[in-house]
């Protein structure tokens, strides 16, 4: 594999890491209005209190790595989706404030405001991330220089919206399973969110196969992709099974695998493009056209090789420290 290809894979790993980790805390936010009562809501917010921030760092690192490894793609994507990105940023700011400051002011109106902020911002961010993926699949109009030449209305299409809803359902399910994992048993929710997810999954899959031209060609060239598809389907099917058996760790792992395989399928469909030009396929930004110099990709690889094991170490450390908050008992002397 050459360096741009390696970085394509690494960025895929960062996105998958982000979607799996921040996915569940976004999901918890989406689920919040379905909980009645301040005490339970507080419990939900606290279940992600110590870790959401670290999860979001995956997004920041993805942004930095995209900038470093594929500056042309970074510049094109972020300037093309100007309004959506501003809304994402707005959502992330409100989200941070809602989570961090919820229990810091003694006022039920304040807490309700924060709860709404947490819910609305989680949902908005998720919809927009999903819509971004959808737009990636169908492409956007680019000129020869790789600059976006459309307008905001080119981004408002049915398919991105559908993928946005699909992502919201996926994260809601993932969030439920996370709560299950922490022994906040929410079995009934699991059925509902799984059902909703399955519905969205079927609709999105059919729509993608029928209406999105990019979806299939790469799969025909690489028959091994069928294994990823199989893994994806098995993981989805295993979620209700594991839930019924009260194996929440397995259920959560299955939804994580679901997310990872979905990201993989998306990446394969995209390959070798980072940004597909819908106006003229020759203008698409492939990983080779968009990449930094070999020297930079090498340096970055070294940075990743040193940094990522450290990141995994302290992420695990933090998760281990805060496992099963609910069962913690006060330490009596």
């Amino acid at each position, binding site marked *: 594999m050459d360096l741009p290809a390696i970085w394509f894979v690494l960025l895929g790993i960062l996105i998958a890491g982000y979607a799996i980790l921040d996915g569940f805390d976004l999901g918890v936010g989406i689920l919040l209005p379905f909980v009645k009562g301040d005490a339970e809501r507080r419990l939900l917010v606290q279940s992600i209190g110590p870790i959401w*921030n670290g999860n979001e760092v995956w997004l920041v690192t993805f942004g930095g790595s995209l900038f470093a490894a594929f500056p042309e793609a970074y510049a094109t994507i972020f300037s093309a989706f100007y309004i959506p990105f501003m809304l994402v940023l707005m959502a992330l700011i409100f989200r941070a404030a809602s989570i961090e400051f919820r229990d810091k002011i003694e006022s039920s109106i304040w807490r309700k405001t924060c709860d709404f902020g947490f819910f609305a911002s989680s949902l908005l961010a998720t919809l927009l991330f999903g819509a971004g993926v959808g737009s990636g699949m169908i492409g956007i109009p680019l000129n020869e220089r790789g600059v976006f030449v459309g307008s905001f209305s080119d981004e408002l299409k049915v398919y991105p919206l559908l993928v946005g809803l699909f992502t919201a359902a996926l994260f809601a399910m993932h969030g439920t399973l996370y709560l299950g994992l922490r022994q906040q048993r929410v079995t009934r929710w699991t059925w509902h969110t799984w059902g909703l997810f399955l519905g969205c999954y079927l609709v999105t899959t059919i729509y993608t196969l029928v209406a999105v031209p990019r979806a299939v060609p790469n799969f025909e060239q690489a028959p091994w992709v069928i294994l990823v598809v199989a893994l994806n389907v098995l993981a989805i099917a295993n979620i209700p099974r594991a839930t019924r058996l009260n194996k929440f760790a397995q259920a959560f792992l299955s939804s994580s695998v679901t997310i990872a395989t979905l990201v993989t399928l998306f990446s394969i469909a995209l390959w070798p493009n980072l940004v597909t030009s819908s106006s003229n396929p020759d203008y698409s930004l492939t990983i080779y056209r968009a990449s930094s*110099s070999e020297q930079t990709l090498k340096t970055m690889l070294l940075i990743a090789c040193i940094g990522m094991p450290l990141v995994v170490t302290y992420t695990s450390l933090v998760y281990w420290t805060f496992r099963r908050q609910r069962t913690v008992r006060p330490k009596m002397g």
Partner: protein
Amino acid sequence: MHVDVVSLSRLQFALTIMFHYLFPPLTIGMGVVLVYLEGRYLLTRDLVYAAATKFWTRLFAITFAMGVATGIVMEFQFGTNWAVYSRFVGDVFGSALAAEGIFAFFLESGFLAIVVFGWNKVSPMFHFFATVMVAVGSIFSAVWIIIANSWQQTPTGHHIVQMMRDGKPWFDSAGHPVMRAEVIDFWALVFNPSSGNRLIHTLIGAFIMGASFIMSISAFYLLKKTHEEFARRSFTGGLIFATIFSLAQLVSGDSNAKMVARNQPAKLAAFEGQFETARGDLSMIGWPDEAARTTRFKIAMPGMLSFLVHGDASKPVIGLDRVPRNYWPPVLISFAAYHAMVGIGMFFIGITLLASFLLWRGKLFNQRWLLRTFVFAVLLAIAANELGWMSAEVGRQPWVVHPRVEHDSAGNFALNSDGFLKYRIEEGLLTSKAVSEAINAQQVMSSIILFGVIYVLMFGIWVFMLNQEIRKGPETASASSSQTRWAVADVAGKLVDEVAITTSDGNRAAHSPIYTE
């Protein structure tokens, strides 16, 4: 007034970065203080230190959350508003940003969780380790972002080359070669001529700001006669810290000015309102008039600037007459921001030395006027940090990537036939040419309004939170309980325990609709 994408994007960047920059220096400064306080607690087991650690941790956490929320905007803004810039420098600049994410942000955010929520979950030694890691992480992030920014000021370690497309040199549709900066020597990029100087200057600024913040709140308690033991110790620690770093900042500032004189002569000329190349006088006050090419109402120390730059009071300092008019930075803003920063710095040296003297004589804590001054001095510290960045970034204009200026073999500036400095134009990028092609003024205008509204809101919340925590104050040692592993009951720990008690109660779970065990 004609408003274009460039001006609006600059306005947006100024707004978002200046708002963001309220928070990181505070967390950098307070991080070091937390390490000190918790370390002292572990050594002495004195409960006042434990209470102090927890109190400042609460303020740290609120401020850190603000820093994270506003910082994420910065990272994406290069792409949204400055796409041409991003394409041109991504190969160089992007790696520093990515390194910041991998090496600094994960470290900070991970260990902060343990610092804030982990009092009862990890051993005191491990908690202390986490505090150290948070402080280290915040300094690391400063390191990487300043490396990136310094490269924009004094780029080295790269070359400007034509991009390849599909294996062939790339020309755009107009037939121009598509150029960009590519790294050739990563370490030369990291240790570019200004990164060391600017990093030290920025960190010292952050330390002074953190110390001033702590002194401000402590002085407030001393004036109110509450939490006095805690306040005296915090104030003393902050004062020692602030005195040393205020003095150090003078040395660092001098070193920085010499560096700017070597690499960005137009910037220094703008700082000093030096329109003519002549003996440099160090101005105290003045009003630069760009149109008349003179600095009015100037009160200056004759020859002092020449002495500071060259070590020779009669040697001329390059003025703006050696810089083509279209490469002048905005002189008035640069001059004013720079002088205000230096003025505040001098004020800090004076006031901290005075306070240290009074502390030594045992008279500090009766000087109510001085304590009152310290309550508000933190605002000046914040202003100085912001003004310093304003000088650095406005003084860099009109370039977003400042090109190198050529020197002759003797080390003096080389001049072209018109008597102007020789800029390596092809290495630089003008700010006016760096904005995204795909965006329009309306979009940027709406995002400015959006950020404006959000930031006013966020600022209000932050101040409210701080005020609330300050009024609550540190927990006094007498309220200590032996139930927790740490001898003093703490808010975070209690909260967790409370939740644990309520939720491990089976009855409660039974009538809660979401727990279907």
